[in-house]
């Protein structure tokens, strides 16, 4: 399926949307398509909103953000996010990373909440009443709880999948498995479509099975400026450049006009980034593989 078709079919106004990926494999391609299709009133959830949610907030897609660390990793601030929060234009619901991971774990297991030892002595429960506690029926210990997060739609970028959506990821795994299993609908965007036999040859690498996938989209370089291990490196120069772009609303608008609204798809986006592929393409470092025989 094409990305425009997948977003048109599976992402709706008002949805709770998750585009996961911890630094690695963030589907900027899907985020840009959601901006182009002008989705509105979304509740965007992610541990680290990253540049993609900063762009979606700036483009007016978001009504609410659910998160645990809203910065530009290794650089500083997400300025569209900061302007929206400091101007009180965006509702926020804030956890820690463990809290967000626990919310996805509960959602994936279809439990109403998850318990964790956390938050004692912190001010987070004071500002987020959804962080509660429960008394352990076995030990009497007070444990923190967070509610399940069950998104309407989760979008995961991956290295490869087969046509039915059996999806393999290596490198940093983030919380994509839990987010996908927690979700009502799942869109997988991959660097490469492979034959089912490639998946079957190495089943331990499959993170998301076809059974929970609604759409498979092939979009090489779809995670840029984040990265795909074994395919291309993180574009740290762009993350640095985002500081100045996002700080200036006019520059941010120009960015969106040029690289999001101004292109039809990822292929056109890549045409506007001459030399990018050569600069970031991953070096070869293959592993030996294992014997699956019996």
């Amino acid at each position, binding site marked *: 399926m094409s990305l425009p078709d997948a977003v048109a079919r599976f992402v709706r106004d008002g949805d709770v949307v998750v585009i996961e990926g911890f630094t690695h494999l963030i589907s900027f391609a899907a985020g840009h398509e959601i901006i182009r299709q002008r989705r509105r009133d979304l509740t965007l959830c992610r541990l680290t909103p990253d540049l993609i949610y900063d762009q979606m907030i700036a483009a007016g897609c978001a009504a609410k953000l659910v998160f645990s660390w809203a910065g530009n990793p290794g650089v500083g601030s997400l300025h569209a996010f900061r302007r929206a929060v400091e101007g009180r234009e965006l509702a926020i619901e804030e956890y820690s990373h463990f809290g967000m991971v626990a919310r996805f774990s509960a959602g994936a297991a279809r439990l109403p909440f998850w318990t964790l030892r956390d938050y004692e002595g912190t*001010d987070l429960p004071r500002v987020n009443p959804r962080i509660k506690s429960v008394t352990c029926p076995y030990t009497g210990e007070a444990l923190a709880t967070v509610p399940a997060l069950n998104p309407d739609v989760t979008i995961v970028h991956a290295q490869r999948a087969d046509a039915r959506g059996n999806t393999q990821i290596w490198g940093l795994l983030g919380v994509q498995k839990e987010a996908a299993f927690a979700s009502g609908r799942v869109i997988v965007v991959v660097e490469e479509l492979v034959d089912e036999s490639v998946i079957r040859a190495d089943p331990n690498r499959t993170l998301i099975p076809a059974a929970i996938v609604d759409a498979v989209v092939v979009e090489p370089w779809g995670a840029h400026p984040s990265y795909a291990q074994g395919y291309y490196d993180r574009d740290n120069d762009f993350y640095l450049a985002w500081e100045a772009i996002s700080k200036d609303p006019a520059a941010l608008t120009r960015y969106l006009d040029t690289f999001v609204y101004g292109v039809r798809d990822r292929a056109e986006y890549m045409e506007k980034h001459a030399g990018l592929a050569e600069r970031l393409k991953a070096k070869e470092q293959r592993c030996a593989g294992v014997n699956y025989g019996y």
Partner: protein
Amino acid sequence: MMAAVAARELADGEIVFVGIGLPNLACNLARRTHAPNLVMIYESGAVGATPSRLPVSIGDPALVTGSLMVCGMADVFQLFLQNGRIEVGFLGGAQVDRHGNINTTVIGPYERPKVRLPGSGGAAEIAIHAQRILIVSKLSPRAFPERVDFVTSPGQRVQRVITDKGVLEPDGAGGELVLTGLYPGVAAADVKAGVGWTLRSRPSLARLDPPTRVELQLLREVLDPERLYLKS
């Protein structure tokens, strides 16, 4: 100096939860000097990472290549951190207060923030679960107020605060931070001027050694040649 002092806090064989910036430099320096068996865990899921370039984000691909294990984040927080396997955690923040509480969430009231900061990330649970916490932060009265505006990470497990002029330690577990060590050429008054409360000192202050030639060479030529995190 901060990176070298922080590195010396780490013992060989320890399991350390690493952050980006100076903590990452300190851990990699320790691993290349006195602590070759230091196990570095990054919250992104890389365990036993040996990055061949300076990672500029917590999820740099160089943390994966050549590491001992890569796990999902549910495993990082449940099987390593909550399980009690992390011996040392590094934290920093916009504000550190008299009791070692850290604020990385908001300056001003939460509902009407003067400055919205990134938030906790893993910092809340690192402060709660790592067996000891090392804070790395530069001194200034704004950065070291008497009370933080928001407690992101509670200070109970803070063992040492490594600043750019000297070292502070709690007076007993969770107690008030007091000055315990000075860098070469720094007077106690210089440290006190950088703290927003009346800082007490231990009766005898340690004089901390400057970085050795080997430490400096590793930091400047191998670990951070582009001086992303080192000032000089």
